[in-house]
């Protein structure tokens, strides 16, 4: 997590504790394989976008899939990549599904 924070200090002016958000990220399928975990809790600056969040985690875990191949869910509903994240949110990146 500290690496994530450091990597954002240059772009976020108000980077103090009051502007940070705690986010829970769940991983499924190949993302869970690559992240070596099902769930992680991270703290990110309040202005972090969903695309920015995925890029940070992609670098951290060396995810093989680009964001263009994924969908995203926030608080157990599909969300748009342009939707805002809020403190306490749960975020899940959805690789192509294979039900049925």
């Amino acid at each position: 997590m500290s690496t994530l924070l450091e990597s954002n200090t240059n772009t976020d002016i108000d980077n103090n504790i009051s502007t940070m958000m705690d986010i829970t990220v769940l991983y499924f399928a190949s993302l869970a394989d690559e992240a070596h975990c099902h769930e992680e809790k991270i703290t990110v600056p309040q202005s972090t976008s969903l695309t920015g969040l995925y890029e940070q985690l992609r670098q951290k875990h060396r995810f093989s899939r680009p964001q263009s191949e994924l969908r995203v869910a926030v608080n157990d509903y599909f969300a748009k990549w342009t939707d805002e994240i809020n403190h306490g949110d749960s975020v899940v990146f959805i690789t192509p599904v294979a039900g049925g």
Partner: protein
Amino acid sequence: MVDQVHGQSMSIKRSIDEAYLIAERDGFALLDIDIDESRLKSTLDDGSCGAFVCFEGRVRNHNNASSVNRLTYYGYEELALNQGRAIIEEAKKRFEITHAIAIHRIGALEIGDVAIWVGVVSAHRYPAFDACRWILDTIKADIPVWKQEYYQDDSTKWLSNNG
């Protein structure tokens, strides 16, 4: 390792009875044991309905050229329930149907096991066919369920419905 990162998505967080109640109320649920078709059918009985169409998706012994031994489905249950409820709501708007229920199974499945069951009742036959196919297609496109196939050489592969 598999259990550590995937264990939570191989089983449902609810009881079996609760899953069937949700399926009856919202039209969709995940289940992690054999799907009881007669239990689902009984919730669709309606004297005004002349047509019942159902689809069962079963685990095949082959996929393309590869021989499949078994496979495992993993699900993101909370999103699946929310999205499944929306799919069934939409189906009832799009088609002249009375009711529809679908269940997707997760966990380890053997050849011949039913992975998905979709049942629709309507007064007339065409809307039941159309809705059943649309619900199935939409589940396959949108429900967060993932599939890993195990082959005879012990290799595995994550599948995707969209190429």
